[in-house]
């Protein structure tokens, strides 16, 4: 499957991916309207430590711990390999957050679990973080499992 990868060598720590992600998943057609004055809850996070920057988002693991630990069956790994969340089923226990070894699951103010779904549900095709990265640090590539 195609996955989002980050080349640390080229990640500048500009955090644009976070804003592009939050906007892409906002369902609003204007970034200002979507994000101005509101808490921004992206599904990708840039980890910064001095001179090292690295954008982290769901790895869509072969054997995801989050789906195993999900008590309501909201998190599933589909046939296409994408780990998705069904908000109808999610009860907000946040077990998945504790289980994810990469810290890639987050919540918004409504305690709804948010995670990277490779921009499949928002109908973009190419993930917004990849499209908006100014230095080609975030790529969307096919790799052998």
């Amino acid at each position, binding site marked *: 499957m195609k996955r989002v990868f980050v080349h640390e*060598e*080229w990640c*500048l*720590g*500009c*955090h*644009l991916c*976070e*804003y*592009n992600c939050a*906007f892409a998943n906002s369902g609003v057609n204007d*970034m*200002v309207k979507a*994000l*101005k004055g509101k808490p*921004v809850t992206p599904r990708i996070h840039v980890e910064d430590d001095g*001179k090292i920057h690295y954008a982290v988002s769901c790895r869509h693991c072969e054997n995801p711990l989050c789906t195993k630990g999900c008590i309501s069956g909201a998190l599933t790994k589909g046939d296409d390999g994408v780990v998705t969340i069904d908000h109808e089923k999610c009860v907000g226990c946040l077990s998945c957050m504790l289980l994810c070894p990469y810290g890639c699951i987050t919540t918004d103010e409504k305690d709804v679990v948010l995670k990277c779904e490779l921009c499949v549900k928002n109908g973009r095709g190419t993930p917004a973080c990849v499209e*908006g990265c*100014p*230095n*080609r*640090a975030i790529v969307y590539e096919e790799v052998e499992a």
Partner: protein
Amino acid sequence: MAVNYMIPSFEIERNDYRCIRCRVCERQCANSVHRYDPDGDVMLSDEFKCVDCQRCVCLCPTHALKIRKNENELRENANWKQNTILEIYKQANTGGVLLSSMGNPEPFPVYWDKILINASQVTNPSIDPLREPMETRVFLGKKPHDMTRDKNGKLNTELPPQLELELPIMFSAMSYGSISYNAHKSLATAAETLGTLYNTGEGGLHEDFYQYGKNTIVQVASGRFGVYKDYLEAGAAIEIKMGQGAKPGIGGHLPGAKVGADISKTRMIPEGSDAISPAPHHDIYSIEDLRQLVYSLKEATGYKKPVIVKVAAVHNIAAIASGIARSGADIIAIDGFRGGTGAAPTRIRDNVGIPIELALASVDKRLRDEGIRQNVSLVVGGSIRSASDVIKAVALGADACYIATSALLALGCHLCRTCQSGKCNWGIATQDPELVKRLNPEAGKERLVNMLTAWKHEIKEMMGLMGINSIEALRGNRMMLRGVGLNEKELEILGISHAGE
């Protein structure tokens, strides 16, 4: 000093409705212009630090930013322009020589813009480059004076070493030091893809780039940084740099702060030491001395590589070029006064040298008059901005053009002209690893290849409309050019007629 006489050059206009406080501008500005104030939830800016590099403008996801010229005005004075006064304040503050970068920005005439190109109509057919083959390949080097035969009557076909270019454009010298590792890598890989050459400048050749040797011109300048046998043998040609258009007659100075481990190794100088290139080559005080260096370099490389001599366009350029054409050099590169630099004294950049258009026309004429034009190929640089500049240069007599500013623009340079600060926000003219990584050489290469591919298409289109299907047939073909708004002397030097004639 309590009173600050300076005024910021730019104003930062932030559309507060659009600004979402993502702070990308703050993170991306190496000059620390932008700052977030959590107390008021506002973005603040220190306009004194802004150099108008446009990095924040380009990265702002909501297009909330504009950088404008500061409209604050000193009392109008036709003699004492605002900038002239501010430069005096600056020097009164610091006591230092003013430094600038890139090419001369002053409003001197741009002759390219006063020359128009001919087209075929009715009596001679134009050629459609999409239907018929068009040749943009050129060979640079010494050409035989006449045909000779051996004792068996067979033609002598042995030529002195030549450079083969797929299009009459090369990337001109920019040293590793003045520009970053990633900028060099972009140029080297793009030159390889395009079938042309890039130039190391005087900073030596990084060990990673020896693999691009056949697309590399290695430079030997007055500082002789990084010059040794393997270096000379690595390149396809060797260039002796006598001068540079942006700062003719003076040397260079790479501050010790930029001489990190990699640059120290490449330049073969101690880490942290200033890299000083003397104004003259201390072993060259005449054409005879130059000839010695040309032949030393040829001897060192087995007469397999053409030797280029690069000079700045100055007042007696035709006589100088005539001397160089007799020195054994294979190619003369002339750099006009609008050529760029990583740092030069402002007064020198803005006042020394002559336009490349005039220098080229007079050199080509002089060499033809003296019957030695075939001794050398002519390469010109110093602000070749587009395919039409290339066409005009070739028609004035150039074999090929050197481009550098255009190449840096393709890599993201916004001509803010503060390379000397070493804080290039685009990752080009800097050695700060945090900034260097901003130029992904994969993207850089792609943009350079795109630009020159586009130029090549345009060159073919323009050749076609003149009814010319080979760039060789355009060289020195001044009948294809007409001047507009030029006086008789200018037309005479350019060797072209006025439009309408």
